[in-house]
């Protein structure tokens, strides 16, 4: 029999139903594995007691015939989702020790569907980063290694703990959040799949905000089908979030028919960037061939403002963040530096409570919104954002989904790109445009680079059409025959 930690969620649900094992057993093997892989630093907070409690409650439900859709499945929860009574930090010193008195809508929905929480997954501080190196609790290590090289690699970010945990089999799946690529890029770096749904599909209530107009919850798992199952659970209208869409949630797993005959796949020509590694170019071409072989047609489309997506993002996201993070002031919760008068308390609390990258982004955002610069930076970026969004709308008149690489490289070494913020930001060059347009997008592992590291392909869909994104991703998954760790 395969190890329980090797099962997909779909397989585990079958095993639980067939009484091959219990939720407590399934949970325990994951807790044990977490101990073995402590060195990855994938979790900020482990919750083994809670997990076993939830698992045994799950076993009781299943025994009495009231099993819920995800009953007994052990997951990692990104530590950006507030969990009632369980420390939630956003990987920031400023929230060290913060115990929410409420449950985020996303985690509540998962608990309602029976999941077991193994712990709170590490991330970049306030989800700001692409290498999971900005966490106050230390960086996360990618379970993958380059062939013949023991160097520690980044899992990507910001959902680096989530991705590493799923890849290392110390969680069957995980929640993530994606503001500019924070699910898709780590999924690609860790050889798993992950989906960011349409903005407004999942409630943001109780999820610590980074950039409100971009943040969207999503999932990471070892198969496209598992992602569909998890996404099903966390999707849906929430009256507590004014940007949540009151739209019916389709049966995502049912969309995985494998049938993409007649679908038109758009290949955005502007994504063919100068200096892109050959193997990424090759993998992309391979993806096109797979989809054509499965009966789809591919056409070249143009997204002319692609080049401006990153600069647009690096105005809008920091601007919103500078305001969203104003509430961390040492008054109501979290870290306080006990230093003299009010201004000192504020300034030293925030100087000590936030890490370098967060401070940098708050500064950029504050600057972009300040008088005299607002029009040149913020308003300008919002205008370009509309152009970017319109590019996608025009492209989707000609095709059903877009296929692109997920990231411009495979996982890199920890510490690399750290001295140059722009170089770090370039990690998100392929993921940011869909974020700005609020579109659903998925990364699916498709092959390995020359060093034996996973590479992902990205499928971007029309707004609210996660079904086609999942369907096409499922075909790539099948044809690539990608083997995880």
């Amino acid at each position, binding site marked *: 029999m395969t190890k329980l930690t090797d099962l997909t969620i779909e397989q585990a649900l079958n095993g639980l139903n067939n009484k091959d094992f219990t939720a407590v057993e399934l949970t325990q093997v994951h807790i044990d594995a977490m101990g073995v892989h402590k060195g990855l630093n994938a979790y900020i907070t482990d919750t083994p007691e809670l997990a076993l409690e939830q698992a045994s409650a799950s076993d009781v439900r299943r025994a009495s015939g009231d099993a819920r859709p995800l009953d007994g499945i052990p997951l990692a929860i990104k530590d950006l*989702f*507030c969990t009632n009574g369980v420390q*939630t930090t*956003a990987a920031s010193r400023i*929230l060290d020790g*913060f115990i*929410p*008195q*409420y449950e*985020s809508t996303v985690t509540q929905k998962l608990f309602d569907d029976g999941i077991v929480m193994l712990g709170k997954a590490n991330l970049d501080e306030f989800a700001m980063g692409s290498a999971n190196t900005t966490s106050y609790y230390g960086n996360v290590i990618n379970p993958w290694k380059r062939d013949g090289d023991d160097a520690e690699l980044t899992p990507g970010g910001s959902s680096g703990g989530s991705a590493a945990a799923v890849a290392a089999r110390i969680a069957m799946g995980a929640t993530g959040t994606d503001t500019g690529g924070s699910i898709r890029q780590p999924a690609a770096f860790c050889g798993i799949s992950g989906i960011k749904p349409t903005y407004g599909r999942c409630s*943001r*209530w*109780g*999820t*610590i*905000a980074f*950039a*409100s*107009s971009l943040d969207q919850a999503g999932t990471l798992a070892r198969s496209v089908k598992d992602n569909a199952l998890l996404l099903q659970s966390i999707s849906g209208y929430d*009256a*507590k*979030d*004014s*940007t949540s869409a009151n739209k019916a949630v389709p049966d995502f797993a049912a969309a995985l028919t494998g049938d993409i005959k007649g679908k038109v796949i758009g290949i955005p020509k502007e994504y063919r960037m100068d200096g892109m590694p050959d193997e990424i170019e090759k993998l992309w071409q391979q993806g096109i061939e797979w989809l054509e072989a499965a009966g789809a047609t591919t056409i070249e489309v143009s997204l002319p403002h692609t080049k401006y997506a990153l600069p647009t993002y690096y105005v809008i996201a920091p*601007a*919103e963040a*500078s*305001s969203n*993070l*104003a*509430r961390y*002031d040492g*008054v*109501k*919760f979290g870290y306080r530096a006990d230093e003299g008068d*009010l201004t000192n308390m*504020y300034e030293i609390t925030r100087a000590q409570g936030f890490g370098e990258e967060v401070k940098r982004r708050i500064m950029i955002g*504050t600057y972009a*919104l*300040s*008088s005299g610069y*607002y029009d040149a930076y*913020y308003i300008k970026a919002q205008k370009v954002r509309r152009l970017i969004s319109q590019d996608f709308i025009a492209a989707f008149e000609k095709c059903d989904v877009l296929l692109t690489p997920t990231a411009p490289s495979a996982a890199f070494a920890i510490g690399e790109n750290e001295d140059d913020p722009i170089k770090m930001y370039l990690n998100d060059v392929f993921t940011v445009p869909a974020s700005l347009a609020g579109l659903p997008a998925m990364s699916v592992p498709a092959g390995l680079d020359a060093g034996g590291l996973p590479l992902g392909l990205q499928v971007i869909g029309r707004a609210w059409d996660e079904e086609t994104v999942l369907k096409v991703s499922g075909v790539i998954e099948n044809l690539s025959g990608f083997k995880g760790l």
Partner: protein
Amino acid sequence: MAKLVKGETGDWEIVIGMEIHAQITAESKLFSGAPTKFGAAPNSQVSLVDAAMPGMLPVLNEKCVEQAIRTGLGINSKINTYSVFARKNYFYPDLPQGYQISQFEDPIVGEGEIEIDLPDGSVKVIGITRLHLEQDAGKSVHDQHPNKTYVDLNRSGCALMEIVSEPDIRSPEEAIAYLSKIRMIVRYLETCDGNMDEGSMRADVNISMRRPNAELGIRAEIKNVNSLKAVGQAIEYEAIRQVEILESGGEVVQETRLWDPVKLETRSMRSKEEAHDYRYFPDPDLLPLKFSQDWVDEIKASLPELPDQKKHRFMEDFGLSHYDASVLIAERSRADYYEEVAKGHDPKLAANWVINELLGILKKNEKTLEQSPISAEKLGGLIALISDDTISGKIAKDVFADMFKNGKDALDIVEEKGLKQVTDSGAIEALIDEVIASNPDNVAKYKSGKDKLFGFFVGQVMKKSQGKANPAAVNKLLKEKLG
């Protein structure tokens, strides 16, 4: 009523614009389901949203939107069916989010105008710039501890309307009249209770001085002006302060000043001013607010009669003076009371009795109209007795005092005490005869041309009747008898 300030070097004109913050009457807050009641235990009316807990999101209260539209219509202003919420970013302990959700570029209500009634009976039009929706902050308590501030977030997130006027106001009297008028309108509309003591209504006053009709000068904004009286005092103080600066060759600093109601002075709040840059931007947690013109029309159709409409109707339908009408409409309940009294009775007489007698006695006894022992119907009964000559106006005052004491019907009191007016000419003639008989000297003097003595005879007859004789009948019969 523009009031000029006499300086040493000539006259100065006061130019005033006002920003009124009015707390919206609603059960729950602008963006959360926490209650809005005044005076609860600290932090007991605070939701996770109001305390800006991580991940909390605002959801707009429909009633507050409706109230803003009602008020906008009530101040004759343009309703914008598209408006945007924006964040105003600054740090303060009672501002938990680190920003106030307000409206900046696209407010829910645009330009309009209202009429204000001045003490000399004249009317002036004041322009409205805008009305926008925003969150209130919490409360900082400074006197609990020598070097700590205590923060209560109960008020945090309550809905406010900020009503901004054009700089059309020219004197403390006009400012008071403007604030009173806005207060009257929101109370009529029941969109704000107008309670300035509890802070449900607060005013910021922008003041600058200029030579008559010259260009606008540099203004100072005075905050924390929380009563009608304080508005007058603060303007008087500030006008003199600025004139002194200007006349000594100085320049007024554009700044925020605080009104100190104890020391009766304004003082600079420069500490807050120094790093002002609110970095407004559209709140990404809230989509633009859009509603249909149909909804606006529906709300418009449901508005009560507004003070000015009522005033004009009272003047036209009841023949009241501008002054009487504006006194009666000052409170919606007062106007309703008056209309009830006037129902089927002489409206001018009714106005006199309500304004001069009822309001006077209520004030003397520190009672509100709602607490009046004399109902509108009963006061109407009294007026009916006057109109049909059952009692004289003078007797009526005594009856009224009795009614106020014991709440009885006027007619009952009149009958119990036998106060009915004597109109029977036989009885009056008998009294006249008695008076003539006992005053032969005066009769002789009168007949010899001392007309002034007529009043003496009237008085004597009335006295003999214990005030009950009908004065008109007495007059008529006396004239006949005395020839």
